[in-house]
């Protein structure tokens, strides 16, 4: 048990900050990211005894984090539907209302455009652009082929550019 706790504390030390930023960009609010991170690490702790080392610890931890985040976003989608609203719009509104956002207007527009992306595209874009993971690393985490990831990233980038130019025009 003590050995497991040591491994767990090592994971906390090494990955908590990085995973926080990933989750925060995915969900769009500090409070949700904080709650979700607690859930993610609880899951990591519960699953740690069954970690067999087939995957790298790094990949395994990221996989749990990304799966939990996608589950959270799916639930958000249902909650948004029940409120007759769209999850993308709610995410964009969260970016607008984020008290910890201290970027320029252009950066806010970009954050909004990222928030409007479909979950999987958003995930690939954030992992590549912000988390600076290689396609191979993302592929190992998500189980998606490198080719599909590249296509997904390209589409996401195009959508963001389009959104940004629309925002520029509407000014």
């Amino acid at each position: 048990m003590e050995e497991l706790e040591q491994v767990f504390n090592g994971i906390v030390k090494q990955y908590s900050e990085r995973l926080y930023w990933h989750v925060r960009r995915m969900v769009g609010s500090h409070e949700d990211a904080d709650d979700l991170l607690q859930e993610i690490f609880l899951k990591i702790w519960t699953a740690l005894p069954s970690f067999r080392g087939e995957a790298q610890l790094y990949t395994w931890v990221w996989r749990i984090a990304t799966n939990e985040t996608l589950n959270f976003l799916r639930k958000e989608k249902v909650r948004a539907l029940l409120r007759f609203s769209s999850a993308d719009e709610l995410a964009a509104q969260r970016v607008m209302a984020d008290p910890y956002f201290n970027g320029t207007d252009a950066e806010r527009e970009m954050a909004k455009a990222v928030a409007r992306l479909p979950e999987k595209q958003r995930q690939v874009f954030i992992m590549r652009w912000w988390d600076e993971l290689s396609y191979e690393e993302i592929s190992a985490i998500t189980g998606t082929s490198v080719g599909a990831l590249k296509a997904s990233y390209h589409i996401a980038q195009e959508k963001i550019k389009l959104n940004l130019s629309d925002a520029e025009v509407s000014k």
Partner: protein
Amino acid sequence: MTRKNPISVPDGYFQDLQVRLSQIPSQEEAAPRGIRRLAPYVAYAASLAVLATVGSFVFRQTAVKEDNGWDYVSYLALSLDPDGLVELKEAEEPTEDDIRSFLLASNVSVEQLAMLDDEKTY
């Protein structure tokens, strides 16, 4: 597109986060996740069981009382006069004499009574 992080966190957040996250194993040891997750459902099931038990007790109590009451009346009636019950049943249908004496007692005149008798013959 530039890569500058435009979002921040509250002061000292990451230190606090690491402390909170490292407490997960000890919290889990005190109350494993499964039990904590099941706790509200167990409480719900327990309250339903209590309601069902109380409900069935109350129902049985009232039902037994009614049965006992009915049995008691029947038993009393039969034990007092078993034949009397039969007579009472037969006596429920009034005879013509009963009707006649009732009408006379209700100040109906003899003529009116005779008229009734005439109507009967027609």
